[in-house]
């Protein structure tokens, strides 16, 4: 018999190395679900030297960042504060992607402790972070998928109104009463009300539908600002997006798009004036396009219609029409 004298050492070694690598991948998650709060706080403290507060509500984790001198005199974000915000975003991102907790969204609220009446609220979908890190999203698209708002905390607004009312009624020393009144409020109803006020989180579980509604509204605002054709003819006023649940069936997206005609086009290339119908087609082409692209990108199908309310009309299109429009099977003329 011919003896097989082949050295099997290298093959065994490679096999062992591969096994070791695979086993090393079976380790526990870095940030366990029962320690999310501690993980976020200690990570920000240890790695970025930033003190933060955090709260987990269902599928959403919120982080409060006290950033001194958040805004400068002309209301621009201070670069040092901006870096802190980015560090916290990075920290919370690391936690939410390496945990076994079911976290779908994270919220970062940045406030200047000396001026808590203005805050920055940053909301992100955790899957977007993962997809971006795995190269599934471009940097530009990743930027568009964040919901960012600079606003006054609704609770602050409410407190101010009550305070003014008490002043008018000449009721003195009513601080405790006002505080109790504000804190006794009903839970917040929408993601627009997510806030931090008087060392307390006002937070709710973010749903994909309302997150998408807000994101789409943000995208529409951006389109009115950056789309050459839209910007030429129109000026956006208020744009709002919400998802209205329907107890009897699928919910609907409702977009309120208030814009006005420019007195004169911002610029004229050909010198030709667009007709009213053509302008209408232009607006709805962009609106339908943004909605269909965003919903398709998230593969979101749990809705019935999308409703667009402008100053002059209300347009409703069904989910099927949105998909057909996206696929180019339905023309804008057939929808409007």
């Amino acid at each position, binding site marked *: 018999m*011919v003896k097989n004298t082949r050295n099997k050492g290298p093959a065994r070694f490679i096999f062992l190395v591969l096994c070791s690598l695979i086993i090393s991948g079976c380790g526990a998650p*870095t940030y366990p679900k029962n320690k999310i709060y501690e993980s976020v706080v200690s990570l920000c403290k240890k790695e970025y030297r930033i003190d933060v507060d955090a709260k987990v509500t269902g599928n959403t984790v919120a982080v409060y960042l006290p950033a001194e001198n958040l805004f400068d005199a002309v209301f621009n974000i201070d670069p040092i504060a901006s870096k802190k915000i980015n560090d916290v975003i990075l920290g919370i991102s690391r936690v939410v992607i*390496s*945990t076994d907790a079911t976290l779908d969204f994270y919220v970062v609220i940045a406030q200047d402790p000396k001026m808590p009446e203005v805050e920055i609220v940053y909301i992100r979908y955790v899957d977007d972070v993962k997809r971006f890190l795995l190269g599934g999203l471009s940097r530009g698209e990743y930027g568009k998928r964040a919901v960012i708002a600079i606003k006054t905390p609704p609770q602050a607004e409410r407190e101010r109104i009550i305070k003014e009312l008490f002043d008018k009624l000449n009721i003195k020393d009513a601080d405790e009463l006002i505080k109790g009144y504000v804190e006794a409020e009903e839970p917040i109803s929408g993601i627009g009300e997510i806030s931090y006020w008087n060392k307390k989180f006002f937070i709710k579980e973010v749903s994909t539908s309302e997150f998408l509604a807000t994101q789409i509204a943000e995208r529409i605002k951006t389109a009115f600002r950056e789309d050459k054709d839209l910007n030429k003819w129109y000026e956006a006023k208020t744009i709002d997006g919400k998802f209205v649940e329907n107890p009897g069936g699928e919910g609907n997206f409702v977009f309120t798009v208030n814009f006005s005609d420019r007195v004169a086009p911002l610029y004229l290339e050909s010198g030709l004036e667009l007709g009213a119908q053509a302008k209408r087609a232009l607006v709805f082409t962009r609106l339908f396009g943004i909605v269909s692209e965003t919903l398709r990108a998230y593969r979101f199908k749990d809705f019935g219609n999308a409703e667009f309310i402008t100053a002059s009309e209300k347009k409703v299109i069904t989910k099927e029409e949105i998909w057909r429009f996206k696929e180019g099977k339905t023309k804008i003329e057939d929808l409007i």
Partner: protein
Amino acid sequence: MRSHKKIKIFFIEHWVKILVIVGALAVTALAIWGLSTMESFYRNMTLASIPLQLLMVALNAMIFVYMYMTVFRGGFSKLDKGLIKGDKVAVGFKDVVGMEESKQEAWEVVELIRDHRRLKQIGGKIVRGILMLGPPGCGKTYLAKAIANEAKIPFISMSASSFVEVFVGVGASRVRKVFKQARRLAEANGGCIVFIDEVDSIATRRGFSYLGGGMEKDSTQNQLLAEMDGLKEKDYNVIVIAATNAPETELDEALKRPGRFDRKIYIDKPSLEDREKLFKYYMAKVKYDPLIDIGRLARQAVYKTPADIMNIVKESALIATRNKRDMVTLKDLTEAIDRIDLGIKHRKFMTPGEKEMVAYHESGHLVVLYLIHPTDDVFKATIISHKGALGLVQHQPKEELHTRSKEALLTDIRVSLGGYVAEKMKYNTTSSGVSQDFKTAMAVAHTMVWSLGMGESNLVGDYGIYGSEGGPAAASFLAESTKEQLNKETQHILQNCLKDTEVLLKKEWNIVERFVKELLGKEELEYDEIDAIFKEYGKEHKK
């Protein structure tokens, strides 16, 4: 104390392995540690990308190897290893024509292979290797096949060049694979023949080069030596037959020693008798004119190998088919020989004057050659250009000669000068057509005087070693007077030969004129036509 020494020796012997293993373990440990310190998402992401990375590395490596092989190595080629069952080889000893001595030696080998067991019982040792030496096309492969067929054992045939690769170690690995297969076959069938053709590409002397040149060849040869020795230890009935047309002196001594290539079989070009047999054998496979004198063909095919003869017959059959003949004629065979020896005819446009001068030139060669050459026969004279020559006279020795006498060499010079003399006698001037003739005549005369001691003085010895072979430094050892004398003698030989040729042609000028007329009319004259003309003048050769 002893165990301490053992450990020390173990470390000295295996330090490279130990270093590699420790390094590999350290790198692996670091990799695992690095992974374990990563956050779970990044760790999983890294691990998930490993298969993709491996795939990409493999793909890149494949692309690199493909490009390298395509651009630098002339494409991919599998190891050309042909396994043939001995009884399926359709070549028997009866098919090996001629080479009786070689066949006899080969037959002995066959008997040894057949009686392997009996030989072992009486303590004899089986032949391990047979080296077949000889010029190309003489039937080495054919004989090896015949051995395999008669011995009825499997036959692995391959070319030695297919072992050698650009990567050192590939050839050795291929040798191992071939012998591994041969041993398995030998175990199953009682023996196996490994035939390595053109073995010189791995069997020439091993050497050392600072640039690493020849390393692959050397390592392949070393492996072949090891495998042949290995066979002896395990006693598998594997016989290696190697064939080469390189001189035996070029082969590495280690290969030639007993125990490796025990037997050497010399397969030379066929003799007149063998050529006749070969012509008969190959002609039997085609339809031919029964009037063809095969003996004459054999004479004409002096120094031709069996492969040449097979080619002549094959080519003649093609010519006959092209000329719409249903059998091969002497003309077809002659044309085939011409095509192989002289190349395809190429008619150049020549003025009548040029043509006549060429005819006189060739007739001069022809008459001198026919009348006084002691060893050669004229087979053809032509004024149609071949291979750049405007005309030529084809001649060959009547039989295989391995040495040339002084008289033959002098006649060679006279024949070379025949064209020059004929031109001069007719036109009282000469042409540039003599250039090659003069080179030949001068070279022969120079060699006779400088190297062969055939001059007319008492100077003997090979003065050539002081010339080109010894280099300029060696040439300076030769006295000027000696050089002068040698050169004078060279010229003396040339002058004497010139006079002899002039005398001969003057005497036989009417034959020259006759050949000129014939050549201008027919352009080509064959052996029989030439012989017939000389016969007219009572000058024919005795047969």
